[in-house]
């Protein structure tokens, strides 16, 4: 197990080094000016600056807060509605057009309206974020719940399981692999959602930082902000993977777990 973890860590580090190398080579060979493609060193020192003066943390905090709330709201609603849709063809037929439509409205067109309606504060960002997260989680909830083996449903029926028990003991664990796939997608989309919201109108958060840095042609800072966003998405994603590892251990037989 410990050896496995070490290998894991190494391959991630290797992958990061590879990425850094490509970056350095790109800077050297293309000879693009720093305001188009800054070098790793420039970005690094900019990062240290904003980390020390504390402004980076403030923005991270705001964006993280929006993401967490948006994710909770969007994924929560999606799982609920997805469950309803999965269980009733009737509901599916009635709701689908609206659910799909809610996704097809370009968020970039909708975002300003949300800012307009809900003010430029936290709420509009959380809403945008949850709107973006919603659909993938919904679809995977539907697919997951539909994939629950009919025979196990029969089993639960003979045991006179209540609706809640059915969900807790059967549908949730059975749909979990696919559901968590939805969360993986949702986790990264949540970050995008928060940023879109901040782009459209806000005075804090990492999306705002990207915007303002662009406005000042401070490309190194743009890279810092985007890098931070990527790090946040990666951690969220890593969290989902961790949960998967925890909950889906039963998928691999002990023979393979060797």
């Amino acid at each position: 197990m410990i050896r496995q973890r070490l290998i894991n860590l190494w391959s991630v580090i290797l992958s990061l080094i590879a990425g850094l190398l490509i970056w350095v080579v790109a800077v050297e060979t293309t000879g693009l000016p720093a305001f188009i493609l800054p070098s790793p060193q420039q970005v690094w020192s900019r990062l240290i600056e904003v980390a020390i003066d504390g402004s980076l943390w403030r923005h991270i905090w705001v964006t993280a807060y929006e993401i967490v709330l948006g994710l909770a709201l969007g994924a929560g609603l999606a799982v609920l509605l997805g469950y309803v849709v999965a269980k009733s063809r009737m509901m599916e037929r009635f709701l689908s057009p609206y659910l799909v439509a809610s996704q097809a409205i370009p968020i970039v067109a909708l975002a300003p309206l949300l800012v307009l309606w809900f003010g430029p504060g936290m709420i509009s960002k959380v809403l945008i974020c949850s709107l973006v997260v919603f659909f993938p989680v919904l679809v995977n909830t539907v697919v997951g719940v539909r994939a629950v083996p009919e025979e196990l449903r029969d089993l639960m029926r003979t045991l006179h399981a209540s609706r809640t028990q059915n969900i807790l003991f059967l549908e949730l664990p059975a749909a979990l692999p696919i559901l968590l796939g939805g969360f993986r997608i949702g986790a990264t989309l949540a970050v995008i959602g928060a940023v879109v919201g901040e782009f459209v109108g806000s005075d804090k958060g990492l999306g705002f930082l990207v915007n303002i840095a662009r406005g000042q042609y401070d490309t190194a800072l743009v890279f810092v902000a985007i890098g931070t966003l990527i790090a946040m998405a990666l951690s969220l994603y890593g969290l989902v993977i961790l949960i998967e590892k925890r909950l889906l251990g039963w998928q691999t037989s002990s023979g393979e777990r060797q």
Partner: protein
Amino acid sequence: MSQHPNNPVLTIANLRVCFPAKGADTLNVIGGLSFQVYPHEFLSILGPSGCGKTTLLRVIAGLLSPGAGNVAFTSLPDSSKPAVGLVFQQANLMPWRTVYSNISLPLEIAGYPPGSYSKRIRELIHLVGLDGFGDSYPRDLSGGMLQRVAIARALIHDPALMLLDEPFGSLDALTRERMGVELLNIWQVSRKTVIMVTHSISEAVFLSDRVIVLSPRPALINLDLRINLPRPRDENTRYQPQFGRLAKTLRKAIVEEQVT
């Protein structure tokens, strides 16, 4: 035909089931089946593969609504369906639960506190010969072991009616006999009503009060045989002449139907 002092616990009257087949055809699986099951009775069902035995159990368990006819739990005060313990033809375990918690599932659903049944489960695990596998997941078990887990799961709660669909199908002869004896012990103590589908004639005779032989699709009753062997039965029962006679009668009924 069998007679019984009590009122029947389950009455099946003129039951018909059909499935849609290709085109406008339908597949008549059960065609007008009627019989009654009495309290504490151990009833076995024999019949050729694909004749509708599983379908019949599914109808009784309330998993399938019949096309026509009636399935009534007559002895219950309210005519609600009782809790049934169903052992499926395939073990049908939850892959994300260990052996232990697959067995505990019915109790969890019945709402027992988690601490209250661990001893009973350990006993059952021992009974079905799975000591040391309590924490294994289904995918690490052999076919026969899976089936034994399913049997333990059906025995753990005390359903009034047990429906067993070839519960010993993938067990070796000896384990099979041992499981049969265990089942008999449990039944003799708790006097549940049991309906069991099996393919083994000797098993049917050894365990049952009564055996029904079904005809090929559409299933109809070919023979309804009372097994008047004394109880409690043990290994010696198998060597009584009456045992052989009953087995022969059943074999004849099965062969006849398949030939005609």
